[in-house]
């Protein structure tokens, strides 16, 4: 069950988004999903690409390290968390998320 949603700038690089997710889940949440979206910033009349990251509580057995990679079924030594389509430097890309 998703308990916390954080919004990330879709202009960030893949490694920066990965680092950001690791930071936000540290201590008790596991990254569960990422959804791409366009956010309408009405105050400046601009639409920006963002990624919504959903976390769920996990106080025990948290996979603290994350690895965002081009879509692949597995990665040795890592547990696959999910596949998603997310904005990377403003472009929509298919990504596999692993944790350990």
């Amino acid at each position: 069950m998703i308990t916390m949603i954080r919004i990330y700038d879709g202009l960030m690089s893949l490694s920066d988004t990965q680092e950001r997710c690791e930071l936000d889940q540290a201590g008790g949440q596991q990254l569960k999903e990422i959804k791409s979206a366009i956010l309408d910033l009405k105050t400046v009349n601009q639409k920006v690409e963002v990624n919504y990251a959903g976390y769920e509580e996990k106080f025990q057995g948290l996979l603290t390290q994350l690895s965002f990679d081009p879509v692949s079924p597995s990665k040795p030594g890592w547990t696959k968390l999910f596949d998603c389509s997310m904005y990377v430097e403003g472009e929509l890309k298919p990504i596999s998320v692993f944790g350990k």
Partner: protein
Amino acid sequence: MLKTEKVFRTLNYVTMWMLLVGICLLATSTVRAQKKPPILSDRDISAFSKSEIQILQRDAGDVAHPEKAKLARNKLIAIGVEQVDAAFNDYRKKSRKRHDLLQFIFDFLEIGASSAINIINGTERAREVIAEGLSFFQGSRAAFNRDFKFLERQILFDKMVAKRSQKLTAIYEKVNSEVDVYPWEQARSEVREYFYAGTMDEALSSLSVDTGAEAKLSLKELEDAKTAANVRGKASKELLTANTDINPLFKALMDSQDLPKIKAVYALVKKDPLLEPIVKGLPNNQRLGLTPPGKKGLEDSLTAIGNGTAAFIDYNRVLFYLRVAVMDLLEAGDSKPVAAFIKVLGGN
């Protein structure tokens, strides 16, 4: 041989025809420059008399007679402004004339060549030659307009006019000042700036500065709007350092599963003047991004802590969200709550 003669004859006809049309158009031009009124004649006025200017400069420096000095300084300013205006208007007139003439020649040749293709009786080769010439000409015209920034000239002139107006206003605002406050030397420097405000280099530079400033401003507005919408960017160094400091302390506490220990830490949190209000406001903290189940879980844990029925996980949950909240505050520029949180986790 006969073919070549025909081509040349055709080209001659085309050239003659185009020249005739050109002469007709030039002769019927209705745009004429206005005559300058005699009082504005450039001859026989003090502005061009070196000796008059030397006398005025001497008087402008005569601080013993402030009124006379002020009058002389203001006369010098007026002369300077008049000369700068004359130079600017002359430059603008010449530039516009050159531009209009070139554009007219371009239009005229282009229309003439394209019409010639249709009206000549020459061979296919003659038509091809003219068509090739027309393509070459159109390409050259586009390159000329682009490379010599012909179409942007009006923007630059508008910029010059705006800049000149600013400088002149600044000068005129000081003409009532005494010469010891606003001496001729300073006024001359400002008249010089007024002159440079009407140059192409200054207009380009000013345009570039203005565009850069506008772009910077809109980027700042966009960043502010993103922050207001809780859109997070790359983690800052401060954030990563704080996380590194918190991690071992937080992990040790949670791995211990020691209820009295975590209760003691929570008691310190409740005593801390910075952390206590943050804990209180956690369920309604918009920056956290709590979903309804997340909010409910947090509220239940806070209630359980409040009525003394809380388990280890309740304290864990509240301290986790407190951790996220203080990190959010650090990201917003407030480092004190993070420092207080680290201190509490360390048992101090």
